[in-house]
């Protein structure tokens, strides 16, 4: 083990010196310079170009325009990967039905103080509000589906820590509900992606392009911009990510004796 460690440190320092020398001589050609790559410039230029709508995505937020329009398929695949990772987590912690804690009261743990509980109630409301704003304004201001989902994920986690898992389930945030909602969200994304095919457009097409007959999704007015597919896709993505994290936190906060019993019985059976 010791020789491995010494070898590793030696190799790392040699690589460190090499990196230092190469960067010193300007090996990372495009590293902070006054101009940016032409692809980035193209997206910045065309994402809300109301004068030449050939390439536009109808969203002034270049990051979300690239996420859901220019690189839409990639984001859809990535959403699927997230969904599958959550399914993988559930599969690792699966229970064989009879050990579910339905109707059984969890034993009383250490209750946190009144100060913590009151503050977490206030912050819970604030987090929900902020997550909604990030998701619904993702196409005009910094934000989007992922960010909103990650922001929302903190809310049930905080409630579990400050109160109990039981309270979160009483509020209606159950595992079954989260499974259903995130499946609905994924199906919505798939449907929106496939709608243009019915009008002989492309998968995930957002706005009208001269070389396809699909007229494009509604953009909305300046007062209420919808940005075609970007707004509904952001909301669906928010649901998917938020409910995925909710599932993870609900399952990871199950009491340990439930799993101990399950493992013990399966070992007796084999």
């Amino acid at each position, binding site marked *: 083990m010791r020789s491995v460690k010494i070898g590793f440190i030696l190799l790392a320092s040699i690589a460190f010196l090499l990196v230092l020398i190469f960067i010193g001589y300007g090996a990372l050609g495009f590293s902070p310079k*006054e101009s940016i790559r032409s692809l980035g410039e193209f997206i910045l230029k065309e994402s809300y170009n109301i004068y030449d709508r050939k390439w536009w995505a109808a969203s*002034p937020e270049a990051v979300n325009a690239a*996420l859901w329009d220019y690189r839409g398929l990639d984001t859809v695949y990535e959403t699927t990967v997230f969904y599958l990772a959550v399914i993988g987590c559930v599969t690792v912690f699966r229970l064989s039905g009879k050990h579910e804690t339905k109707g059984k009261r969890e034993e009383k743990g250490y209750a946190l103080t009144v100060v913590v509980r009151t503050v977490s109630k206030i912050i819970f409301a604030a987090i929900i509000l902020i997550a909604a704003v990030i998701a619904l304004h993702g196409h005009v201001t910094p934000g989007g589906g992922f960010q909103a989902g990650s922001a929302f994920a903190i809310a049930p986690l905080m409630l579990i820590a400050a109160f109990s898992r039981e309270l979160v389930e009483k509020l209606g945030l159950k595992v079954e509900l989260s499974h259903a909602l995130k499946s609905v969200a994924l199906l919505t994304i798939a449907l929106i992606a496939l709608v243009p095919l019915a009008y002989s457009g492309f998968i995930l097409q957002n706005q009208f392009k001269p070389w396809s007959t699909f007229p494009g999704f509604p953009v909305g007015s300046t007062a209420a911009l919808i940005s075609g597919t970007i707004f509904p896709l952001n909301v669906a993505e928010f649901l998917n990510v938020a409910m995925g994290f909710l599932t993870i936190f609900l399952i990871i906060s199950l009491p340990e004796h439930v799993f101990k019993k399950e493992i013990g019985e399966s070992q007796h059976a084999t």
Partner: protein
Amino acid sequence: MQLETALITYLYAALFVVFSIAVYGVVIKPNILKKIIALSILGDTVNTIIILLGYRAIAKPLPPILPTLNPTKESIEYFFKTSVDPIPQVLVITAIVINMAVTALLAFLAIQVYRLYGTLDYRKVLKLRRWS
């Protein structure tokens, strides 16, 4: 070497040090939990490097969001000449979510390993493994 180049090199060097510490943790540490922590540090370092590549070295770079809904041609031109590169940010938001999903899955697997073997040291787990 100019001051700017020296500072940028220093930034990359610092990131590389964190990177090698993270790789060290993933490769050498026997505890699975510490491996997971090192892996998440590794991912964050790489994300920082990618974000850094999209920076624009001008006096006042803007975020890649057009600040108005009724832009004139001049404001669009000003925007794409002063905003930072959106491509690294798009790549990184994808990477962050995948990173979180992978970390969650690994944490679940580590908890399950601890339940089944009573330890997180992979050497002990290998010894305790029953060959059936």
